[in-house]
């Protein structure tokens, strides 16, 4: 029971943090938020085959109880895809920052210099 609770609450915390960060206005925070969300999704997918301790996913002579191997394959695919996507979005937001001089997700007007001195949440 406690094991399920641990995994479930970890996913919940990750998603909550991810959503909060993804809703921020600056690309770096959004990218971090997306990374947290994708971590949570990977954990969730992994748990979709039920949480079993100490059971092998593939055939073994000495074992009679197995865990579902399919979610592990799914997670592997998901990890590879999200890893590539995260790398892409990092490069994209860097390029966007360098070309437009602003790292705001949708504000074309906020210059980057105004970022550090002022409070983060002051929108123009």
């Amino acid at each position: 029971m406690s094991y399920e609770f641990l995994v479930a609450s970890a996913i919940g915390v990750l998603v909550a943090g991810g959503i909060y960060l993804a809703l921020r206005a600056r690309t770096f925070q959004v990218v971090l938020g997306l990374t947290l969300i994708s971590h949570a999704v990977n954990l969730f997918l992994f748990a979709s085959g039920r949480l079993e301790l100490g059971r092998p996913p593939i055939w073994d002579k000495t074992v009679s109880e197995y865990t579902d191997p399919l979610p592990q394959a799914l997670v592997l695919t998901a990890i590879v895809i999200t890893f590539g996507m995260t790398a892409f979005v990092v490069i994209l937001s860097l390029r966007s920052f360098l070309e437009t001089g602003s790292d705001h997700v949708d504000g074309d007007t906020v210059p980057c210099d105004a970022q550090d001195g002022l409070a983060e949440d002051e929108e123009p």
Partner: protein
Amino acid sequence: MSLLDHLPILPVAIPALAAPLALLAMRRRRALAVGIAVLSCLVQLGLALVLMARVSGGAILAYALGDWPAPFGIVLVADRLAALMLVLTSVLALIALVHALVTGADRKGWHFHPLFQFQLMGLNGAFLTGDLFNLFVFFEVLLIASYGLMLHGQGPARLKAGVQYVVVNLVGSALFLIALGMLYALTGTLNMADMGLRVAAVPAADQGMLRIAALLLTSVFAIKAALVPLHLWLPRTYAVSTPAVAALFAILTKVGVYSLIRVVPQVFGEGAGAAAWVPAPWLYPAALASAVVGFAGVFVARSLSEQAAYAVIGSTATLLVAVAGWSAQTLGAGLYYLAHSTLAGAALFLVADVAARRRGSFGDAAIAGPAFPGRGMVALMFMAAAIAATGLPPLSGFIGKLLILMSVTTQPDWGWAWGVILGTTLIGVIGFARTGSAVFWKVGEGAGAPPAPPSRADMIAPALALALLAALSVGAGAASDYTKAAAAQVLDPAQTAAAVLVERAP
């Protein structure tokens, strides 16, 4: 096994081979890369037509990848709907490719042709697969290619819109995976046909989870289809994309619609017990709202490409109004309109580009500019594209909207559909008349002499799209018969299940 038995995998395999070949050839011999890309598109069109001919009798071709039997391995399923989408994709790809080559848009970056082929691979795969996780993978393939294509040509505006586009779709992918995880946990399968048989057996205590999964999956497809309130990513993205790319993107929203049409009847259809048709009550009002928002955008758009982007939202929504009826008549009318609206959207983007190339610094902004040479011809094409997009006679939009209006009368609350479709048509007509008269009629003060006009060759692609729209209205009888049959096939999931889940001799 003859080569014909491998037909369903070829639309995925050919662009997958063409893309790296084009990439290798690009640096040294550009002409060779272009040749590979064009050849690949032509072969895909041929394959799609052969596939359509083979399934038009009602056969459902199931292709087990690696010969692993159905619920365990991944299957590709080619039926009437899949063949229709494949033909549409390959036709649209050819038009977009011709426009890119003629206008030289493919020379603005190194990787246009490989990305274009990967995009086609993702699209074809998404239309053919019979496995939900595989659908996710092909979604990612087409999305990552679309990120590259959307940014093709670069510039601050594209990068800015690109960040939003990518972020929205990454969140969409995360939701897709959560829905998949829930569905797998509940049913223990990822094969759509198999899942459709198993959802009825989900215990009563888990029905809530099942409904959440169904609605999450619907939301993901609604993001792709740009349904209100999930449409905000689309106008900016499409309006700043290279026009040839935007024309190809006209089918990206239809991928969302296709996935809804494929997954909802198959998995959450009649046999799904308490979860039957869970997404249906949400879809209809959302589609109506999207139609209003889309054509309101057409009405107020500041440039021709922005207007085309809103027209894509509006016409996809009109299509979903029909789809939300979930009956053979409405779905059949909707599928006919799907083919039409894809081509009409592409035609609008291409005509906008043709006008922009002749107006110098005015671009495609909806303000009075110079009286460029060949204005009459471009104006005529814009009018034809606008007629198609709004659904006036004689082009196929009229027939499509008529079919939708006639079919929805069998539904409850059909008055809303009539009011919204007819009202948005009027708003759309006024919107297109406004931008058309500004761009093609008035001459702006201080506009000066127009720049030297480019060769007329860039009118080929939009003319091709318009000719296909005309052909679609001439052949409306045959086309709507086909779409009706396709709709009936989709709404009978037992047929697909029987074809996919064959018992195999060991």
